[in-house]
Each structure stands twice: as structure tokens, then as C-alpha cells.
């Protein structure tokens, strides 16, 4: 999990006001909530936050929507301080037999401008107080901007389709097709696709995931002893798709690769055969019709580095431990027009069968996981 961009940045200004959820009066907790929101990396702000937390957690149930609202625009450290305070209040109130402000929580939940995690927590609190109310609300989250609520609503539709299979196959397929359209989480997309395939349906997994499929590849460069991971070979200095470069054993040139893989795998072993202790590069252009925030999501069990529009964003030197779709999520700012992706993919010295893979998969999505496909 590398995506750090605070979600709902637009809510920041209103959240800093820290008004009560029902009126525009400043909350008596405003100062303490501000302390909690100011925690940062490496424990910065922990000491004042620890004292502030006790003041917030000592509040009564009416404070819970206010605390949830303070999550808008908060960083991930602060979210946990805030959640723990709201949770403490909720459990104390429940133990004392006092009710949570369900109406306020419902109002909060309905406002999709609030932080998705805060809204999901509000939903849980509603569910604890009024399980039937929460169940009735769930289908309405099928197109929610928050992953967890949306996932549960999609899963409810999948589960309903699964019940239909034996009695009404057409309804089951329709339900699954609908669920597939709303699903944004890779494992859930995969599960729905498999269910559809089992029912004889064709699923375009490439489209469902939105892989970047057309690449230029060059290699092999050296990675003997792992030294290639930090060494800047020719493609890191400049991209010239027509030029030769000095490879590991000979001159190397860019070659085309268009993957047909359902999972968008860009396999360096295809053009360059099963080599070890080597480095490869993949280059693609990606057209965006507007400047926008996005995530580049990568899966690989090789060493890798990513540059977008010539700027290095992230890299990781880990070999053959494990891989999955959306293994790494890198926040990017796409510009309008052509954007360039350069991926470095290094292969190590291990010889076991399961270490032969030299590949990656890459897709571009919004924060929710909705595939962003190139517009040209």
C-alpha cells in the first residue's frame, strides 16, 4: 500500500472548522481534534495527541459524528487516533445502555463528501444500534465512492446471483454482469469473472482490469549480483526508441510487445528468453484527456522501478516472494495529453522453477480502483 494521497482533500477546509455535525457552532473538542489531526510521520505529534485523545474519548455519544467529520482530509495516522476515540465512546455508551445518535450518523453516511473510512465506520455504528436499518441501506452503496461500502453492496448482489443460479440462470448472469460493472476490487472482479465463466459467459478480463497492454521492451542489461537494480542503464538516461544500447552481452534494441494475457502480464522472457541476473525496461505512452490524479498499480515478483513522465516515483528490490494484482499502488499526477511510463524490471540469480518469472502487470486507476483507459 503506497498510495498516501489524502482522500477528499476538498473537505479539508470544512473539517478544520470542526463544527458539530448538526450546527455551525464550534465543537468544544475542536482543539483536541486539531491535535489529533496534526500527528505525522515518525510519531510527530504523538505526545500532545496522547493527551488530546483522552479529552476526545471522554466525550459523550453526540461527539461521535463530530469526530467522524474530523476525519475529512486527515492523514492515515490521524484517522486511527480519531477512530480509536470514536470507538471508545461508542463502546462505553453501548455498555451503559445509552443510544448512539443514529439519525446524525445516517445523515453523515449519506454525505459522500465525507471520508470513505469515516462513512464506513458510521455504517458499522448504525449496524450495531439498528442492524435492520444498516441492512436496508446496503444496496444503496452499489456505486459508492468508498471501497468497503461498495464492495459489500456488490457482494450482496453476487450472493443473490449465486442463489439464482439453480432456478434462474439468466437472472444470475444479469446479476453478475451488473456486479462486475460496479466492482472495483481486483479479487472481487476476479471472483465475479470466474462465476460468469462457469456459467458459460465470456468475460473480457483485460477490459475489466484495464491493463496497459502495448509496450516497448529493451534488454537484457546486466544484473549480476543484483548490481543492476541501482545502475542507471541507457533507458534511464534518455528514451530513444530507435537507438541501440549496450546490453549485458551485446547491443540491444527496443522491441514491441502487446500482451494478450487476461492479467496484463508483460513477460520479458517472451522476447529475451529465460535469463537470470538481468535487467529489462518497458516503455509505454498513455494518453489522458485531462490532467488528473491517478494511481499506477503494479504487480510483480521481480525488482522494479517506475518513472512517469521521466520522474522516478518508486522502486522495490524484492524477488520472488509473492505477487498479486494491485500489489503496489503509486499515486501519480497525469498531465493532459501523452504521459510516459518507464518500468525497470530486474531478475535475480535464483534457479528454482518458481523464480523464473520476469514480468510485471500495470494498470492506471482512480483512487477507488476504476480503470482509467487511455483516450487515444
Amino acid at each position, binding site marked *: 500500500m*503506497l498510495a498516501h494521497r489524502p482522500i477528499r482533500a476538498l473537505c479539508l477546509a470544512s473539517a478544520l472548522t470542526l463544527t458539530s455535525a448538526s450546527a455551525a457552532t464550534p465543537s468544544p473538542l475542536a482543539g483536541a481534534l486539531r491535535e489529533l489531526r496534526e500527528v505525522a510521520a515518525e*510519531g510527530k505529534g*504523538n505526545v500532545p495527541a496522547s493527551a488530546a485523545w483522552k479529552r476526545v474519548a471522554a466525550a459523550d455519544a453526540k461527539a461521535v459524528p463530530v469526530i467522524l467529520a474530523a476525519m475529512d482530509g486527515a492523514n*492515515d495516522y490521524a484517522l*486511527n487516533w480519531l477512530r480509536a476515540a470514536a470507538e471508545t465512546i461508542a463502546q462505553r455508551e453501548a455498555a451503559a445502555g445509552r443510544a448512539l445518535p443514529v439519525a446524525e450518523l445516517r445523515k453523515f453516511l449519506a454525505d459522500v463528501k465525507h471520508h470513505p473510512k469515516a462513512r464506513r465506520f458510521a455504517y458499522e455504528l448504525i449496524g450495531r444500534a439498528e442492524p435492520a436499518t444498516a441492512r436496508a441501506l446496503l444496496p444503496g452503496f452499489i456505486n459508492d465512492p468508498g471501497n468497503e461500502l461498495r464492495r459489500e453492496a456488490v457482494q450482496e448482489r453476487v450472493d443473490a446471483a449465486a442463489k439464482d443460479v439453480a432456478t434462474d440462470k439468466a437472472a444470475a448472469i444479469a446479476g453478475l454482469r451488473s456486479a462486475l460493472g460496479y466492482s472495483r476490487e481486483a479479487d472481487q472482479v476476479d471472483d465475479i469473472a470466474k462465476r460468469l465463466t462457469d456459467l458459460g459467459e465470456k468475460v473480457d478480463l483485460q477490459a475489466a482490469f484495464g491493463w496497459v497492454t502495448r509496450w516497448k521492451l529493451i534488454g537484457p542489461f546486466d544484473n549480476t549480483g543484483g548490481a543492476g537494480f541501482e545502475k542507471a542503464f541507457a533507458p534511464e538516461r534518455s528514451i530513444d526508441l530507435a537507438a541501440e544500447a549496450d546490453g549485458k552481452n551485446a547491443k540491444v534494441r527496443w522491441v514491441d510487445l502487446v500482451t494478450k494475457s487476461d492479467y496484463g502480464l508483460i513477460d520479458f522472457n517472451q522476447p529475451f528468453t529465460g535469463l537470470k541476473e538481468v535487467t529489462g525496461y518497458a516503455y509505454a505512452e498513455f494518453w489522458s484527456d485531462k490532467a488528473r490524479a491517478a494511481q499506477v498499480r503494479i504487480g510483480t515478483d521481480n525488482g522494479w522501478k517506475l518513472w512517469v513522465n521521466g520522474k522516478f516515483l518508486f522502486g522495490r528490490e524484492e524477488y520472488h516472494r509473492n505477487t498479486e494484482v494491485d500489489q503496489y499502488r503509486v499515486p501519480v499526477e497525469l498531465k493532459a495529453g501523452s504521459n510516459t511510463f518507464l518500468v525497470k524490471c530486474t531478475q535475480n540469480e535464483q534457479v528454482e522453477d518458481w523464480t523464473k518469472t520476469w514480468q510485471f502487470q500495470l494498470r492506471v486507476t482512480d483512487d477507488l480502483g476504476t480503470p482509467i483507459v487511455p483516450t487515444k
Partner: protein
Amino acid sequence: MKLPSLGLACLLALSARADDWTQFRGPAGNGIATGPKLPTKLDTGSVTWAVDLPGRGLSSPVIIGDRVFVTASSGARQDRLHVLCFNLADGSLRWERQFWATGRTMTHEKISAATPSPASDGRRIFAIFSSNDCAALDLDGDLLWYRGLGRDYPNASNSLGMSSSLVVAEGVLVAQVENDSESFTAGLDAATGLNRWKIDRPKKANWTSPSLLKGADGRTLVALQSSKGVAVVEPATGKTVWSYDDGASTVPSTTVSDGKLYVPSQGLTVLEPAATGQPPKQLWRSSQMRPGTSSPLVLGDRVFTMNDGGILSCADATDGKRLWQLRLKGPFSATPVSAGGFLYCVNEKGLVQVVDPSKPDGVVVSELDLAQAVIGTPSIAAGSLFVRSDGKLWRIGRDSAL
């Protein structure tokens, strides 16, 4: 000043007791309980209580006074991190806190984000997860501080999951965050969570846990095991006191007993620390005693190791000569623990096997089938064995008075 008597009583009640099980493999990190004996003839009637857990986990329960603390993780991406506190007497939930993981939660399917065990100094519970999120709470669940070490240091992760448990010594929480990329061990101030120190460590995935030992001057030291060997550091500074550099396993952890280190290295290697700064003396080494996933256990003059298949090996702790082997029903990941001279071994299928190692060749004296996969090491306190699976927590043993 007059102290509120109730507050003082609570404070005393919540202070660490000799019978508390404060961390992975107990307060001494050797897997041996010194409190009331456990029953040795286990059957279904031995289960005092069993409760459902809201998520997965391998971490060992921590028991402080009348409370049992357990971590768990849930959610499609295992990114809900739970810290739970149960009442020892009846297993009722006292409180629960949840956190959202700020680091990567991807793990091998066999484990989960709640693989590392929490630790306690008797007043606070420190919980760490595979995502390298670390929370400090008091025993009533009040949040004291929070760190997202996987967020602070974004290349500190392992795609198979992290499992190193915490230890706390001299007011410092030692977190081994060792992996193939951004590999380090940190000493966090137990009161604030701030870095007291952070040292680079070998860039190699490492699932072992730190072990506590006493230095020549009686001060507590921490042994950090890795693929390179063992580095013994001061908890207050992270400064290396001495090291052993002949390589070591990255799965089972070092066990300290009677001042000696039983290191899963070249099989099993036993080290005796020398004067400060000097290399340790190697007492013996045995390839026959190579442990699997489970860590070694030393009971008196006997050392025990378990391979993944369930072969329990017993050797003379003084010279490493193997004395006997006993085939238990495997496979095994959990480390055996001991009370009253008996070994309590829980296999991956949830079968608790009680071994009397004083008998020639060892004898299984009873079995209890919990019928759920158990990967994590059990804990012992209050005359009971505490076992957790992905879905349940059991207290096995008598309902002792507190």
C-alpha cells in the same frame, strides 16, 4: 497526599505479575511458565471457555492479570487491525480497538496481518502487525500512541508478510522490521512511540523475533537474529555489544536459557556470551537438532526442537548429544511451550499434544483436538493454556482464582 484507595488497588491489580505472559514465548522468551501447573490430561472438558475472534491471526495471546489480549486482522485486504481484550475468567469481551493499516497488508495465504505477537510491560499493551502498524494502549484500551512504520518507511515490507514479534526492555520497544529492501530494527520509546534509535539491518526477509538476555553487568540486552547471524544490542541505544556472524535461520528464533543462546544456525548452535565486546564462545553445534518453523525450547538440561513434520528431538543441553526423537502428529508451525515439566505442542490442525519428556523417549500423555487450523504459538497463564486460531480463542485449563 492521600491516594485514592480504589485507584491504588487497580494499579496493583494491573501491575505485571510473575504469572503474566507478557510476550511471544512468555516473559523470559523461553516458552516456560513458572506459575500454576497446567492440567496434563486434556480432554474436551478441559476447555474453560472459547470465544470467537473477529479476524484472522497467528499472534500469541498476552495475559496480564485478569485480562487476555489478542490481535487479529480482518477485511478483504486484511487491513482492519484489531486489538482485543477479554476477561480471563469467562472470556467475555472487555474492549476492542480497530485500526486501519497504513502499510502493506499482503501476506502469504497461510498467515495474516496479525502474525507478530504483541508485548506488554504490565501497564501497556504494544501491538504490531505485518503492515508495521504499531499501537500502544493502556490496559483499559486508551490509545497512548500510534506509529505507521510501513508508512514512515514505505519500502519496509515483505510480500509474504512480516512476523517479528515485539519485545520491551528498559523503556524501549524493539521492533525488527527486516526485509529484502528497507531493512531496519527500531527502538521506540515505550512512552511516546518516538524513535530512540533505528539501525540498518541485513537486506533479507526475516521472520524471526528478538530475544532478551542479560549482559555481563546484569543489564538487559536484545538478540537480533538474521540471515547473517545474531547481533546483540543494547535496548536503550541499539548499539551492538557483540555479534555472531556465522549465519542463522530467518524463521525459528533464538532461545535464551541460563545465559546461553540456542541459535537456529547451522542446525542448532549454542553460544555462551563472553566479556563485553568479545565474540561469544560456541559451546556446541548439532545439525541433527535443526528446528523447522518452531523455535527451540530448553527445559533444565534438555533442549527440544521440532521439525515441520512433527518430529520432536531431545538433546542434552550441555553437549548437544541427541537423546531421543518422538514422532508427534504434525505438521507444526507453533513453538512448544512448557509448564510443570510437560511440553504443550499444538499442530497446524489444532491438535494439542501433551508430552511428558521425562519418560524415556518422551511420551504423549494426552491429546485435545480443537479442530481448527492453529499456526500461532500458545501462551500460558493462570494455570491455563491459551490457544488461538484464525477464528477462535480457547482457554484450556482450570478456572484459577486470581
